[in-house]
């Protein structure tokens, strides 16, 4: 596995250990003490490194080509997955996967964006960037889950909804908006896992849930740091600064109350041990289903509405100046404006 740039110093030590071990074996010299010291050092350094990553470094882990994706988790966590296709109107979007499965004795509906690992799969999945029919497929299947009281597990991993001609023509914004509204009134638990990239509205379109869980190195942002850098700094080279400014890490979002829980990743990131990561998520899923299944449909809706209703930070200004009324305002059109219009 190719190391990320900030992992290289560690990789060097790891390489030394391997060489030392080989040497020990070949030349029958006992280096075990040195090796033990080095190994301990590596583990300590790793802990230091990965617990203190910059947002930009986390971004590289969140986008790591080997990072486990929705289909990996589906195969590790669930049994008897049956994929369901299509929005019954236009087509089937391969960027969003949906289906039925079981976990810990619970029947569930699984939804998730799939980015794809190799070039062929990436093209097939459109890099995890859904078209409107993807959001509509997800909603169709989630509404079915609501009818039959089946909990919904949603995996979020997308750079964003697809910015394309046909996506616009078929109502990309409308598809996302309708999901936001309709997911609010699903009468079944909706549990969301941001597993990699939480790219803006495209992510939110399947992320209105009772509990929002984020993996340690995942990000969730209103705009990609590249986009933000291009707009505010006018150069993509300021992406690390933008990643910092946007406060898009799990730790920040948890502190803001936007994310409910962070799941710790295996040391170095989920891609170092996908099975271990999957096990952590599986336990969380089972526990959360049991927690929320106790609530009835109406209570779930109230809880979900209230959860999003209270998000937002603002201040209340003391009004010192008299309020400007409609008729006495200074800026505005000429009086002709208020005349009845033919």
């Amino acid at each position, binding site marked *: 596995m190719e190391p990320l740039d900030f992992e290289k110093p560690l990789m060097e030590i790891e390489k030394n250990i391997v060489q030392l071990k080989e040497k020990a074996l070949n030349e029958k010299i006992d280096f075990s003490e040195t090796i033990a010291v080095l190994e301990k050092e590596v583990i300590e350094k790793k802990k230091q490194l990965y617990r203190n990553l910059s947002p930009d470094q986390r971004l590289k882990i969140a986008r790591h080509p080997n990072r486990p994706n929705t289909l990996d988790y589906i195969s590790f966590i669930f049994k008897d997955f049956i994929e369901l296709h299509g929005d019954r109107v236009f087509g089937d979007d391969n960027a969003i996967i949906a289906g039925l499965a079981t976990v810990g004795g619970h029947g569930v509906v699984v939804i998730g964006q799939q980015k794809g690992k190799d070039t062929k799969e990436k093209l097939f999945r459109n890099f995890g960037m859904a078209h409107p029919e993807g959001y509509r497929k997800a909603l169709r299947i989630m509404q079915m889950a609501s009818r039959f009281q089946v909990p919904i597990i949603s995996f979020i991993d997308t750079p964003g909804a697809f910015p394309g001609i046909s996506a616009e023509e078929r109502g990309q*914004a409308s598809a996302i*908006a309708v999901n936001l509204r309709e997911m609010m009134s699903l009468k079944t638990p909706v549990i969301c896992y941001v597993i990699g990239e939480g790219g803006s*509205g495209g992510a939110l379109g399947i992320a209105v849930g009772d509990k929002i869980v984020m993996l340690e190195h995942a990000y969730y942002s209103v705009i990609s740091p590249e986009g933000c850098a291009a707009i*505010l700094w006018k150069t993509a080279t300021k992406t690390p600064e933008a990643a910092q400014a946007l406060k898009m890490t799990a730790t920040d979002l948890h502190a*803001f109350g936007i994310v409910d829980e962070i799941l710790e990743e295996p040391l170095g990131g989920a891609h170092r041990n996908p099975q271990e990561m999957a096990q952590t998520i599986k336990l969380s899923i089972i526990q959360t289903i049991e927690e929320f299944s106790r609530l009835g449909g109406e209570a779930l809706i109230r809880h979900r509405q209230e959860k999003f209703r209270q998000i*937002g930070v603002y201040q209340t200004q003391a009004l010192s100046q008299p309020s400007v009324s409609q008729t006495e305002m200074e800026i505005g059109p000429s009086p002709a404006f208020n005349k009845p219009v033919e």
Partner: protein
Amino acid sequence: MSFFGSKFNPFQTSKRKIPDGLFSKCPKCSQTIYNKEIDANLKICPKCEYHFTLGAWERINLMIDKGTFVEMDKSLISADPLNFQGPKTYPQKLSEDQEATGLNEAVICGLGNIMSIPVSFGVTDSRFIMGSMGSVVGEKLTRCIERGIEKKIPVVIVSGSGGGARMYEGCFSLMQMAKTSGALSRLSEAGMPFISILTNPTMGGVLASFASLGDIIIAEPDALIGFAGPRVIAQTVRQELPEGFQKSEYLLKHGNIDRVTNRRNLTQEVFQILQVLYQENRKEVGIEN
């Protein structure tokens, strides 16, 4: 989300027309027109019908019966929850736009009448941080929708937002999309209509939430309306965009909106729609059979 509107700046035109002097150049037909003539014509170009951008108060004056508008939640102002560290700080950007527009945020909400029908009214001003939605815009619009539920009156929101969800407040802005949409789900349950009016431009996170959820969606002519900005789309798909792409008329043709309506007829049309959809009013004016 604002990313998608990045390089394309739909305000270039509206900035040019802010009357510094006596004349403005129409961005569509390039005619030089006397400002008073534009103002007297509801800010519609007398030569080519181009709809200049209206400020929030101009919109209120256009649509709400004179003397009936009561502004609500005026005291809500933005905080800086991310302590945003950019080339400009968020408080700097806010005070700049407050000075330029005379508004304290990108939205004005209140109660008023549209041709005697009481409505809960909201309007975003695209001159204030590109009409983008942060916590204050999200909160004020949510309260605007909730007043519709409490008072059992229709909700009318006029959107003008090139910015979508506001970058400076990160995920707080993104979540306002879910918050406003959640409120509209409750409004719908309460049986009150929501009329969404789209003006030039309505983009990104604003369009991908409340603005797209109108029971009726009306756009002003020739407005830029889309999820992603045209430049970003052109870069992504590497092909030329179709003629009139993401304009009101294009959306109408593709079935995304109910109507494209000239500003001159907008108030009358909203009134007629509410007469039919708003049951309470129907009883009062006695058109119930």
